[in-house]
């Protein structure tokens, strides 16, 4: 019973971490985006939002709680109400296996931790389908379709490049993946890290892959009809997912809680992990502020014609090179260096291939339609 109680308390504490962190992260990303756009963002002028408007998110949260929940007349009531619950549950469920520190600072250290993360995040499109279908709104439905086709497609490069750290550490256990990173995997297999990062940006629906809620095309996508705190739930889940993806990326490719002096002070590991995740999160925020939105066919073509084949090639090359170097019984540093060289060569090969194909497409397009600006090739999606 003691174990049960401890697990329950741990789960409760861990579920609170993303919810509290998000309050700060929303404020921070609003500030960063405002500076990128030459604005001030939330300020404390004329409000009681505290120094630098630190508590603006709290004020917004309270305001949104008081708003009326409007359920459209034609909506499928039960499913409409269930969708925001599901989306937040899925967003928080991933935190059960996040290792916040060397030991103990994790709810469960599943032996299939990395797989659990993938399995839980594969539930995300399902909440979008629920929201999009139950709203009985064409924009919502188009948004759900876009989200699902995008997420199902980008799951392939994401899982394939997640297999690379699993392959190198020989375990799906997140703690063991961190233990194996005396050199962070991001420095050993940068190509896998890059494909994983791009695929998770697409999974999150962050710009430039923000097709599911493209506000200039389909209002707000699958949550068009939601108001009040039900909209707040989608907004919250969006930020939690961004932060979770940053943490998972830090665990898989940036060495998790590893850092100086962690052996002496284990709690410092949490600080290192959160710091790494915060930096990754800020890359996402900069993407958000700076990127244009792609077209849906460009997004899908980029995945199926470039990212998925590239991640398959990365997985095969890494497996072969790693096996060869292990068979030759080289030093650990030589193994890392060999993998790094193989990854860089593959990356250069991919870029060369891309430029050749791109040039051919451009030439074909200009021949067919003279006067067309030569930019990205038209996707001739199959």
């Amino acid at each position, binding site marked *: 019973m003691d174990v*049960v109680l401890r697990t329950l308390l741990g789960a409760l504490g861990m579920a609170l971490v993303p919810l509290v962190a998000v309050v700060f992260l929303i404020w921070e990303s609003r500030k960063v985006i405002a500076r990128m756009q030459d604005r001030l963002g939330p300020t404390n002028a004329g409000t009681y939002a505290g120094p630098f408007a630190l508590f603006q998110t709290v004020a917004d949260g309270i305001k949104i709680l008081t708003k009326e929940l409007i359920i459209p007349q034609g909506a*499928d009531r039960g*499913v409409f109400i269930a969708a925001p619950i599901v989306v937040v549950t899925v967003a928080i469920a991933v935190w059960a296996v996040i290792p916040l520190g060397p030991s103990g600072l994790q709810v469960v250290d*599943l*032996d*299939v931790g990395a*797989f*659990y993360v*993938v*399995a*839980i995040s*594969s*539930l995300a*499109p*399902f909440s979008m*389908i*629920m929201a999009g*279908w139950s709203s*009985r709104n064409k924009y919502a*439905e188009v948004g*759900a*379709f876009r989200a*699902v086709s995008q997420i*199902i497609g980008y*799951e392939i490069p994401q899982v394939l490049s997640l297999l690379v750290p699993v392959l190198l550490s020989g375990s*799906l256990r997140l703690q063991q993946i961190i233990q194996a990173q005396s050199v962070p995997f991001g420095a050993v297999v940068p190509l896998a890290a890059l494909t994983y990062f791009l695929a998770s940006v697409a999974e999150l629906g962050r710009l430039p892959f923000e097709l599911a809620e493209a506000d200039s095309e389909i209002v707000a996508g699958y949550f068009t009809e939601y108001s009040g705190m039900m909209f707040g739930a989608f907004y919250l889940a969006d930020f939690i997912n961004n932060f979770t993806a940053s943490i998972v990326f830090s665990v898989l490719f940036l060495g998790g809680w590893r850092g100086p002096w962690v052996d002496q002070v284990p709690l410092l590991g949490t600080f290192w992990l959160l710091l790494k995740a915060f930096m990754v999160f800020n890359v996402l925020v900069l993407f958000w502020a700076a990127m244009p939105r792609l077209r849906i066919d460009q997004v899908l073509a980029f995945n199926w014609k470039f990212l998925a084949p590239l991640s398959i090639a990365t997985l095969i090359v890494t497996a072969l090179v790693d096996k060869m170097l292990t068979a030759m019984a080289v030093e650990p540093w030589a193994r890392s260096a060999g993998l790094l060289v193989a990854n860089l060569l593959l990356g250069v090969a991919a870029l060369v291939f891309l430029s050749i194909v791109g040039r051919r497409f451009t030439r074909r397009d200009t021949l067919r339609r003279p006067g067309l600006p030569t930019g990205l090739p038209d996707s001739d999606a*199959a």
Partner: protein
Amino acid sequence: MSVGQLTFLAFAAFTLGAAVRVVTHRLVFHAALWLIASFFGIAAVYLLLESPFMAGVQLFIYIGGVAVLTAIAVMVTKGMMRRDLPTMANVRSSALVAVSLFLVMSWTILQMPLPEAPASPVFEEGLAMLGMALVDPRGYLLPFEVVSLMLLIVLIGALYVARER
């Protein structure tokens, strides 16, 4: 009854209840959602059996894959948003099919010898052994490769069907 048994009974009841709703619900989309709920119950039972890998597979393949595809298929079906529902036809013949299927399956399951002793405890290297068995020539290498070949054929077939003419 122990806590484990009570939890199992709760999840089993949930799974079966959701499964009943799948076949009795008149809205096909709701039936698909109940199907997902029932998959969830099965994943929870796998977790109770201390097999998180099987639970993950259940979530990843059945909910992330099969159920999402089912829901999309339902969404693009014509007239799925309509409120006037078709009446159930052929109740008798479908009941006949269902009952005979149930009888055949329960007979097969009852024929199977069940182990008397409790199953061996899950050991640490279980997942690694499963992986080794799948690629071992004396294990399941041949079925594994045949399945992958079949999936490749399905992929090519889907591309052929979907290509623009």
